[in-house]
């Protein structure tokens, strides 16, 4: 697939997305609600065949953003799925680790630092925080920074 074909292909999942943002240097952002993140990720990894890079968790005031970065190496395009978790009290999202074992660690890490519950994760135990770190304190949340 060339870049044009890739863009056409990505527009097939439009109904699951809020919008598609195209930035220069072949950077594409797919914005979606957290409920749709699983099918969108599965589409990008399985159907498009993009390579999984990493996930970024961001605490942005009114919601949490989970950014799934993929690289489509045939064209050098970086595809980022931006999923919004609106519920700040009990933030949760479906885990992608069942079909993508490469995401197992990073989901555990985001669980540690932002307190996001990854549903159906095969092994959601502590990864990067120390054993004596208090429960319920998430170091990358905005309120902790002050």
């Amino acid at each position, binding site marked *: 697939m060339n870049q044009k074909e890739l863009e056409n292909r990505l527009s097939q999942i439009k109904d699951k997305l809020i919008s598609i943002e195209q930035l220069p240097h072949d950077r594409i952002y797919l914005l979606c609600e957290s409920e749709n993140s699983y099918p969108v990720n599965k589409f990008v990894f399985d159907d498009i065949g993009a*390579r*999984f*890079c990493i996930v970024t968790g961001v605490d942005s005031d009114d919601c949490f953003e989970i950014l799934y970065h993929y690289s489509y190496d045939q064209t050098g395009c970086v595809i*980022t799925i931006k999923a919004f978790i609106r519920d700040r009290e009990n933030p949760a999202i479906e885990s992608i680790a069942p079909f993508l*074992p*490469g995401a197992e660690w990073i989901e555990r890490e985001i669980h540690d630092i932002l307190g996001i519950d990854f549903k159906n994760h095969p092994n959601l135990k502590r990864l990067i*925080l120390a054993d004596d770190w208090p429960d319920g304190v998430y*170091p990358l949340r905005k309120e902790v920074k002050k």
Partner: protein
Amino acid sequence: MKKTVKKPVIAVGPFHPLQEEMEFFQLTVDGEKVTDIDVRISYNHRGIERISESLQFDQIPFLVSRICGICSASHPLAYVQAVEDIAGAKPPERALYERTIINELERIHSHLLWGGLGGHIIGYDTVFMWAWKYREPVLDLLEEITGNRNNYGNVKVGGCREDIPNEIIPRILKELDKIEKKTEMLTNAVLDDPVLHARLKGVGVLTREDAIKYAVTGPTARGSGVAIDVRRDDPYAAYGDLDWSVITQTEGDVFAKAVVRLLETFESIKMVRQALKKLPDGPVTMEVKEIPPGEGIGHAEAPRGETFHYVRSDGGNRPTRHKVRAPSYVNVPSFKASCIGGDLADVTLTLAAVDPCYSCTERLAAVDRESKVIHDYEALLQMSRDKTARIKKELGVPGIKMEDLQIG
């Protein structure tokens, strides 16, 4: 009733005098076979992403170059590319070439370092001595160019901090010829050795399917037939202007990964030579006054694979979020696919084959399901070396010792 509870594992470490990072592997074994593997990381979590949010955009390259001493050129490069992505800045040509030169020299010394340590693990200390000896002049070149053997601190948003003076280019080219000759000798010696073939082939195989599922990068992926390389796929710095090849092997075993790294060293020498000869004239830096609000992604091919940086700005002078993914973060979990079912004597080597900054191997302990025997790192290293000795004996290779040689 048989107890299935595992005994506590005694770790060697947590700091080994030779290595700098720490990970803890707990292996469950059934006799000689590995049946399960559990990894604990983050003994050295420094909160780099959090610290980065408290620094100004210009200060961060110095922070991220300290993520890894060996990859201290590729992390800041990926970071500045992410920031330049937000700002829409295009650094001057000469700076792009100099970034390429420094990053390829880094790859040469990193691959030689790996070759040496790999030799050490299987009991080939001659390879270790050679590889590290030949690595020294590469570090000298980096020192001459940047002022430092590691942590070069040369890249900045909008270009490079220091220029490479044209006068030293002939000297670098001459030194490169010498390095190439020595590396060639080392490579031939390794590839010709029947013992190494017998010891490394078919060991720690990572299949192509698993390589994709675990999303591994760099030589770990290329050794399993996945032809990915950020330098070619999303060209940055001056890679698009140079003539070079992506090296792949299909077998996915330790030998394939070794071949990929050795041959890549030559491609890197080729690239440095071309970049030095084509080095355009002009400035090495441009002014980037403000970083506008937005988000940017930068990735670079480090010696161990893709280094990935995501930066978000709100228009202030510090990032609001900075995510870093080093290649080992995705390469290390692939041990689940490459170690289980393999020999205990091959574990140290298989873990080392992805070049995980090495620290992992020295904090290794294994629990035998039947006898509850705990093997520590020293014992596992010995097992690995004994297997090499056994293969040597079977092949009829004479075991020459230093004291047998007449010196003088």
